[in-house]
């Protein structure tokens, strides 16, 4: 187990990220793999007592997100392929930095949209529509037909501006 991996798992954002991409059980799988350094999916499933398919899904999600890798080997006698897994939590900072850049781009788009439109919202909580769409729907909610009411988005704009600035600062700092 590397020191970097241990530290990364102490980061609450990294843990949240792992849970979101791979499910609640993923943390147990990650802890087990961290403890063993390398292990096959069968070994992990047996030790954490989770369904093998679930463990495979978790590992594959970690792999897709750059937090685990595997090597394949074929048993010469049986022809069976074995996947041996290893965590690559040292990539977590880079992965989350990319996600912050994506979030920043999306929040900028959203800020522009919020700034340039007037909104009408469903009182039953089915979201809001910009003026053009609201008027096309005769100011009725497309989901529940309730009358739409004017939505004041100043607070949303302020929150977006605030987080955009924070993200810019953090991204800048981490890229140095």
């Amino acid at each position, binding site marked *: 187990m590397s020191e970097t991996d241990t530290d990364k798992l102490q980061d609450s954002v990294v843990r949240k990220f792992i849970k979101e991409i791979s499910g609640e059980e993923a943390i147990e799988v990650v802890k087990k793999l961290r403890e063993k350094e390398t292990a096959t999916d069968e070994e992990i499933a047996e030790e954490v007592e989770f369904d093998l398919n679930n463990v495979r899904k978790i590992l594959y999600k970690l792999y897709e997100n750059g937090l685990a890798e595997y090597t394949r080997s074929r048993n010469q006698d049986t022809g069976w392929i074995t996947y041996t897994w290893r965590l690559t939590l040292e990539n977590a900072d880079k992965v989350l930095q990319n996600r912050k850049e994506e979030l920043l781009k999306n929040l900028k788009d959203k800020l522009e949209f919020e700034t340039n439109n007037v909104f009408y919202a469903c009182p039953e909580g089915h979201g809001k529509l910009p003026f053009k769409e609201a008027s096309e729907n005769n100011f009725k909610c497309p989901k529940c037909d309730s009358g739409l009411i004017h939505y004041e988005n100043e607070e949303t704009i302020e929150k977006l501006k*605030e987080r955009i600035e924070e993200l810019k600062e*953090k991204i800048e700092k981490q890229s140095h």
Partner: protein
Amino acid sequence: MKEKILNKIKEKETVFQNQLWKELDLDSRKCSKIVRELEEQDLVKREWANTNGSRTYKIEYNGNKDPHSTLIAGQEIAPCAVCEEECTPEYCRPLDKWVSFI
């Protein structure tokens, strides 16, 4: 060395720099250099302060301001960090909800 200094700051939460190098029995300039590096990494923040007639830095552990905290609002991670759907942020309800937690 860096780890040792950071752990001491973590343990105390707030510490004066001249107290830090004395307690850890370090060279003051070396200690200052490392604390500056920790500050650049956003792990600690420091500001000038006076203590017992000496001018030194007051150092605070920046534990809550970890490098990825901007992905979190309320207790939730931003949907954009984990979403695999085609993206239309302007109309994304989960993103609207997340922004309301900021």
